[in-house]
């Protein structure tokens, strides 16, 4: 157990009275509540935390927050194991387990580091130039490349945790809870507007958490505490810590990820691990702060080279001193305060090296007091040490900054190099919102252009560097955003906070890379060096987008958060053009990686999609039905009896339907109530056949075509009254048909008076069929005249069936004598029971969708979606006689195009395999000859294929080129390399004849 050697005796926002223990690479260490894994590792003196992606170079922590490129670990174990987690984002909890990644066999001794030695062979894009010979070897090379690549290891088991989702609406969304965001939220909230304030961190305060700035004469964090308390009290303001806004979409829709339980070993029972929010905000305020950039110099990736502001944060927020003796290297003012904080924490500042000609005067007295030597117009020219920094060289550059002059310079021992290459306003979200970013030469960064959505940017994100600006402009933005959302302040506002005095800023000196020997990393995570970028430019990859893709710069898990601007600067130099001319690569969501689990939410597993069930579902289940998925519905597929396989069960069901009595649950059919004076005219326009002549009390089968002339749905529609129809549709097509009807009735023919209303859910439907169907009905409907004259085929009647009020259609899908009995859905099971009971004497047999298919195919009824696939016309199906020539209807004109009139189109035929026991697979191809050898063109395919116990053989339906004229021919059915002969017949194999009338 290692002691916390690098922990300061006092200070920091950690709970020292409580000790947490955790393991890293098997070694047990300790930290405190308030620590991150990163701060705890540093407190324990851990320098080496991982190996780099390509060269396997030793890497240590460089940052304290979201910009960290190196400290990626595998967190937790088993099903909760998570690769590529930034140690700086992980709040420490007791028992935490983490391990380093991308190393073998161990972090200290990693064989992959050989790559670093071979690196001259691996410049950017090397793989495009090699591994091509011999061609057959590529898969072998590729397997090796794949094993070398990748970072962490995924979990091997399923994730036990829950993830929630939540919609939210607000007037003002404030992103970022630093001084600017807090002021904005407070002032927006004062108006009564609904305000949402979110911050990535566990604590609000932003930069104030890590630097020593003061407000109203007291530590900045005192002010933060007071404000947060205030905000928490207000009912119209909601604070969400540990929540990252990950993306900014159209119409002010933003996505955020709340880490509800990641600071715990495991979520509490029934509590989510994370929650994905979809926010719709009337106004957005981005107060997302700025990110510190590294400087690009040779070996700037050695453990112990850290961002100055981050070291400051480790000291002030976590009470951790990452080293003993530091060199601070900067091109801007912010490192001066950092140097003072380091010094206060007892770190010896060996030198403060400033690239600029002059130091910012305001800081010098304090530095003098602290005894810190400032070296202006100097640069760190070399970083020495391998697994950790041991010393640096400090030398002089020529005026352009392109060469070291007079040797590498002074040798200075240190175990810490703190650098600052300037600040990049965090404008990822703004850019995602569609707003252009404009290069500011003075500040050396991109700033917001004119907003394209209802959004404002404040604080350092907007380029306001002073704390006072952050506070004042933040408050103003909050107030204005609330006004724009329709809320105005009543009464006096709170007192404006006053920031402590700070020296006036002097401009930074952008120098995109420091000359020197050795790899100078730009993108630490993707192992991209300045030389790689220059090589890309030299090879003609001139667009920054090409450079990115050729070198992979900015393509790691941090998406180049700290490196992109440096890369841009170097490329601009290499191409000798101005930075705005190069432009930046596209900021894409998410701002920080988002867990798949959170994106998936709870609608997975049994909640993936509804299972729609009919009222009789429980009966089917209790009676052993196997179910088929039809759309979202579960329909009985067949009802096997003990010992029966599917074929036997289906045979039995099919036989029962033709010999006595069978019953099917037909509830799932789509049903649409169509009513109005023009209902018949409307049907005339949407169906191929005529509807005006249909008598009240009658039913008719209709086909619906798209405007392309292709069949997309069919069904029977009944005329309930002069102005009233009951339409049925296919199970899967119900929603689409209603959409289709609404589209035409509302937009094209608004003059037609009619309403279409879905009635699918209202009715339960039992279809009884078979020679005994009429007898059964007679038993249950003693008052009805069921004679074919009184109740003919294709008619309907209302009345009571088994004491239930019902609407009965004399229609069916099997060719047998059939009744489709509709009752209000709640009465479905009662009806079903009554039918089953009364049907016992006829050995009533429930049948599923498979038997239904056999039965309908025997009599040549088509199944939309099986005989049709969106390329089939009524004529192709042999239903041309249905098509009215007297009227226009949707799709009509398409039927007379040159291709749709071709005689050799695939047309519906019957197929009888020569071997009567062979059931050819559906989808098998129809070919002219007996030889299935490729390549050849098929002449069609099998659409349906069954065994028929009635025919005592197998049979099929198919679409065959010119098939209508080819009855009697023998063709071959090809599948899996064989071809079997079959006779072409009419697509009708059985005629139930008079019995069915």
């Amino acid at each position, binding site marked *: 157990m290692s002691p916390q050697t690098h922990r300061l005796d006092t200070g920091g926002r950690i709970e020292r009275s409580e000790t947490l223990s955790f393991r890293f690479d098997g070694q047990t260490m300790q930290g405190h509540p308030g620590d991150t894994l990163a701060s705890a590792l540093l407190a324990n003196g851990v320098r080496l935390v991982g190996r780099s992606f390509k060269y396997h170079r030793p890497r240590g922590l460089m940052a304290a927050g979201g910009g960290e490129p190196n400290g990626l670990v595998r967190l937790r174990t088993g099903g909760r194991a998570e690769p590529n987690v930034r140690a700086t984002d992980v709040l420490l909890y007791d028992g935490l387990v983490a391990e380093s990644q991308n190393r073998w066999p161990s972090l200290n001794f990693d064989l992959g580091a050989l790559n670093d030695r071979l690196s001259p062979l691996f410049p950017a894009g090397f793989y495009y130039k090699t591994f091509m010979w011999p061609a057959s070897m590529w898969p072998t090379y590729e397997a090796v490349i794949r094993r070398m690549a990748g970072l962490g290891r995924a979990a091997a088991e399923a994730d036990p945790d829950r993830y929630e989702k939540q919609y939210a609406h607000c007037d003002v969304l404030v992103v970022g809870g630093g001084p600017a965001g807090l002021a904005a939220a407070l002032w927006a909230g004062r108006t009564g507007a609904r305000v949402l304030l979110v911050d990535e961190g566990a604590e609000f305060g932003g930069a104030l958490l890590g630097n020593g700035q003061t407000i109203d004469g007291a530590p900045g964090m005192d002010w933060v505490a007071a404000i947060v308390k205030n905000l928490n009290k207000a009912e119209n303001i909601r604070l969400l810590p540990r929540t990252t806004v990950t993306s900014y979409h159209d*119409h002010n829709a933003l996505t955020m990820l709340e880490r509800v339980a990641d600071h715990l070993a495991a979520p509490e029972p029934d509590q989510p691990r994370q929650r994905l929010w979809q926010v*719709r905000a009337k106004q957005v305020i981005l107060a997302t702060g700025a990110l510190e950039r590294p400087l690009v110099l040779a070996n700037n990736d050695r453990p112990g080279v850290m961002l100055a502001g981050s070291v400051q944060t480790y000291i002030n927020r976590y009470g951790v001193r990452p080293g003993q003796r530091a060199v601070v290297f900067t091109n801007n003012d912010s490192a001066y305060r950092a140097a003072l904080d380091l010094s206060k924490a007892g770190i010896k500042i060996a030198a403060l090296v400033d690239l600029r000609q002059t130091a910012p005067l305001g800081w010098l007295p304090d530095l003098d007091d602290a005894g810190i030597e400032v070296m202006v117009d100097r640069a760190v020219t070399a970083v020495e040490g391998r697994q950790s920094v041991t010393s640096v060289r400090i030398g002089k550059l020529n005026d352009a900054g392109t060469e070291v002059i007079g040797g590498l310079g002074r040798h200075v021992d240190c175990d810490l190099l703190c650098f600052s290459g300037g600040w990049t306003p965090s404008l990822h979200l703004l850019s995602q919102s569609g707003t252009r970013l404009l290069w500011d030469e003075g500040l050396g960064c991109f700033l917001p252009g004119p907003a394209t959505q209802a959004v404002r940017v404040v604080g350092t994100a907007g380029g306001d560097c002073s704390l006072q600006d952050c506070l004042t402009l933040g408050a103003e933005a909050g107030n204005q955003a609330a006004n724009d959302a329709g809320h105005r302040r009543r009464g006096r506002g709170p007192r404006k906070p006053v920031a402590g005095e700070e020296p006036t800023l002097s401009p930074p000196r952008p120098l995109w890379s420091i000359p020197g020997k050795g790899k100078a990393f730009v993108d630490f995570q993707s192992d991209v060096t300045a030389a790689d970028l220059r090589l890309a430019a030299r090879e003609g990859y001139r667009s920054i987008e090409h450079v990115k893709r050729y070198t992979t710069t900015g393509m790691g898990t941090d998406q180049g958060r700290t490196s992109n601007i440096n890369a841009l600067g170097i490329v601009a130099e290499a191409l000798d053009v101005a930075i705005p001319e190069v432009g930046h690569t596209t900021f894409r969501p998410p701002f920080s990686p988002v867990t798949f689990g959170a994106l998936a939410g709870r609608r997975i597993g049994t909640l993936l999609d509804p299972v729609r069930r009919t009222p009789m579902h429980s009966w089917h289940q209790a009676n052993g039905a196997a179910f088929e998925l039809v759309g979202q519905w579960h329909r009985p597929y067949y009802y096997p009896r003990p010992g029966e396989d599917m074929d036997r069960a289906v045979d039995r069901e099919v036989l029962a339907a033709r010999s006595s009595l069978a019953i099917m649950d037909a509830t799932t059919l789509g049903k649409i109530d169509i009513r109005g004076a023009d209902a018949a005219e409307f049907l005339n326009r949407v169906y191929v056949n005529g509807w005006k002549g249909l008598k009240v009390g009658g039913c008719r089968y209709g086909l619906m075509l798209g405007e392309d002339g292709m069949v997309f749905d069919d069904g029977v529609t009944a005329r309930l009254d002069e102005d009233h129809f009951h339409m049925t549709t296919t199970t899967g097509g119900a929603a689409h048909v209603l959409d289709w009807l609404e589209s035409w009735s509302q937009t094209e023919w608004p003059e037609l008076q009619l309403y279409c209303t879905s009635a699918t859910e209202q009715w339960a439907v039992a279809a009884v069929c078979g020679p005994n169907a009429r007898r059964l009905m007679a038993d249950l409907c003693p008052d009805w005249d069921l004679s074919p004259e009184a109740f003919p085929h294709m008619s309907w009647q209302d009345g009571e069936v088994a004491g239930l009020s019902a609407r009965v259609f004399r229609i069916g899908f099997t060719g047998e004598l059939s009744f489709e009995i509709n009752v209000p859905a709640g009465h479905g099971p009662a009806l079903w029971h009554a039918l089953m009971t009364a049907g016992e004497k006829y050995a009533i047999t429930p049948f599923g969708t498979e038997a239904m298919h056999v039965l309908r195919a025997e009599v040549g009824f088509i199944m939309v979606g099986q005989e049709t696939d969106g390329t089939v016309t009524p004529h192709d199906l042999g239903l041309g006689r249905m098509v009215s020539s007297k009227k226009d209807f949707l799709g009509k*004109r398409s039927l007379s195009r040159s291709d749709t009139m071709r005689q050799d189109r695939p047309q519906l035929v019957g197929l009888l395999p020569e071997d009567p026991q062979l059931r050819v697979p559906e989808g098998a191809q129809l070919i002219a000859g007996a030889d299935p050898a490729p390549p050849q063109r098929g002449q069609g395919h099998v659409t349906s294929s069954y065994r028929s116990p009635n025919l005592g053989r197998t049979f099929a339906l198919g679409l065959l080129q010119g098939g209508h004229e080819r009855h009697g021919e023998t063709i071959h059915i090809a599948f899996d390399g064989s071809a079997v002969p079959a006779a072409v017949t009419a697509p009708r194999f059985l005629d139930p004849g008079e019995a069915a009338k």
Partner: protein
Amino acid sequence: MLQLDCPWCGSRSEEEFSCGGEGHIVRPTKSEDMDDAAWGDYVFMRSNQKGVFFERWRHALGCGRWFNVARSTISHDILAVYRVGDAKPELPE
């Protein structure tokens, strides 16, 4: 995810709507007099405008009404919402 103003229900999430594609395509009444090209043009050819696009939406999981929207296919800004049958609105530059 767009937020659309249904002319009846007001501002609602795209999830409640279905998009019906290009609007103001009038179905020919005398299709039997059209040649294959003219008919094919009606059925298949689209302006697919880059910039202001006039399209149809239905508040399918809301009030059920179809309506028209003028939307920029570049910025996704909604420039106008109007009822079926209304003429294309005049839009500011």
